[in-house]
């Protein structure tokens, strides 16, 4: 990795064109199942292809999707947005299959596809290990399997699944992640096993997307109250595409109630906000604030820490225009932390150089 880094983009989405692309990476029995059953797509409903949010118009460039291959991400993210490193978070929904064996097989194939078709083609790419979401043993095994390759720097889960992420059934996974020094990334998204709002199923996509930050609030609360960070003091969690500005108000609320209710969770032995500062990070897009420097500065002050935020474009999702994903009103010193220092401190594996690769033309670092 280049010693001079100007930005690490912690949330970039490569697009899987369809199940056919996974065929070379599937075991024969699952390849056969796909053919026989006619499974063309396993796309999650979280990002409808034609929703404006799902791909920025200039990146979409007249097509339905963006981020289809390495040259495109090289042009639009690494060069277009000036990132030296990009962490790929694939959001294709194979990990949601309710058949545990199918979910496991498809997820393994997806991670192998990311490695072979993306990581092997550009030294600047890193990726998250997508975890199967309906079987913790499978998730642990997949974490261990992929962790052998240091270019996998994070494990990826979705915000809304079957049970809250703090529940003890998940703890074997957190123990492995802590031991490996791999952060758990939680990305916006749902397995759609429960309504995306706690009120029931909403009618509109707008409700679904806005409700993601409520999901993050509840997951963060679950992780804290169940004692995940007390049990695993070395564990880090990154909330990705969670929105940022809800955090101070919500943490104030949670810390307030903790004062009167901490006796039911006595392992939470300090205010939740302090636990968040030590264990939790957030990517900056979407930031969820007006384009007003003064307001952004106030919101940043309310976070009471310079260590919380990680630079992200959330490419190709459309949250900002132009080339600068950083909200206005962030000081140059803090911007440097967000772009470089905080990601390096969060993802220990970024310090490990990528193994030498046989690269296509223009594939390596300049």
């Amino acid at each position, binding site marked *: 990795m280049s010693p001079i880094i100007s930005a690490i983009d912690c949330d970039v989405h490569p697009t899987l064109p369809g199940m056919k692309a996974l065929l070379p990476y599937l075991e024969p029995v699952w390849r056969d199942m796909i053919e026989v059953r006619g499974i063309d797509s396993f796309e999650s409903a979280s990002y409808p292809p034609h929703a404006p949010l799902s791909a920025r118009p200039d990146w979409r460039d007249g097509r339905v999707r963006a981020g289809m291959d390495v040259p495109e991400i090289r042009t639009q993210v690494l060069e277009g947005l000036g990132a030296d490193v990009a962490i790929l978070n694939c959001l294709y929904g194979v990990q949601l299959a309710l058949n545990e064996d199918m979910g496991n097989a498809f997820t393994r194939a997806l991670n192998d596809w990311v490695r072979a078709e993306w990581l092997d083609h550009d030294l600047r790419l890193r990726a998250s290990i997508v975890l199967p979401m309906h079987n913790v043993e499978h998730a642990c095994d997949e974490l261990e399997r992929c962790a052998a390759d240091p270019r996998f720097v994070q494990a990826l889960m979705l915000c809304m699944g079957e049970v809250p992420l703090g529940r*003890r059934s998940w703890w074997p996974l957190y123990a492995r992640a802590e031991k490996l020094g791999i952060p758990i990334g939680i990305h916006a998204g749902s397995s759609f096993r429960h309504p995306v709002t706690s009120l029931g199923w909403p009618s509109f996509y707008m409700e679904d997307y806005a409700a993601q930050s409520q999901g993050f609030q509840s997951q963060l609360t679950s992780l804290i109250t*169940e*004692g*995940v960070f*007390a*049990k695993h003091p070395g564990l880090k969690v990154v909330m990705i595409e969670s929105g940022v500005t809800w955090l101070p108000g919500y943490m104030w609320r949670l810390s307030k109630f*903790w*004062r*009167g*209710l*901490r*006796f039911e969770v*006595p*392992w939470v*032995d300090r*205010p939740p906000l302090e636990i968040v500062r030590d264990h939790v990070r957030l990517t900056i897009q979407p930031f969820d604030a007006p384009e007003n420097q003064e307001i952004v500065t106030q919101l940043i002050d309310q976070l009471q820490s310079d260590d919380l935020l990680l630079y992200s474009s959330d490419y190709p999702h459309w949250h900002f225009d132009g080339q600068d994903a950083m909200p206005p009103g962030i000081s140059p010193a803090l911007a440097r932390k967000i772009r470089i220092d905080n990601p390096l401190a969060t993802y220990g594996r970024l310090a490990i150089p990528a193994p030498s690769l046989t690269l296509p033309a223009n594939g390596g670092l300049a």
Partner: protein
Amino acid sequence: MARQVVAAAREIEPGGRKLVEVAGRAIVVFNIAGEFFALANRCPHKAGELCKGKISGFISSPEPGVYEISHEGEVIRCPWHGWEFHIRTGKSWCDPRTMNARAFEVKVEKGAQLVEGPYVAETFPVLVEDDYLVIEV
């Protein structure tokens, strides 16, 4: 400065409490296993009446899923928001640096001393053979 006899010691059983007034201040006196402590009857959070709270122990944990109880009978929980205060010191558990119930010293004195001395209870007769609780504000 006011120094006042607030109760006969035998009025407050171990584990019990009594609300008294000293120089216009509402104060709650507790008996923890024969020792007496007094706190302002006003939670420093939103002024809930501590005398109406539940007395409990302190629950802590060495790790998730493991519960331990200590300081049994020494914690008063505000009836409004449940904040916990150590009766012996008035310190809150959640924020002991800045958030405390004001504590007053309670002295146990012999009735004989009180009858002879300058500090005579105004509200009830002091008997020479009993012990009395005295608070100075």
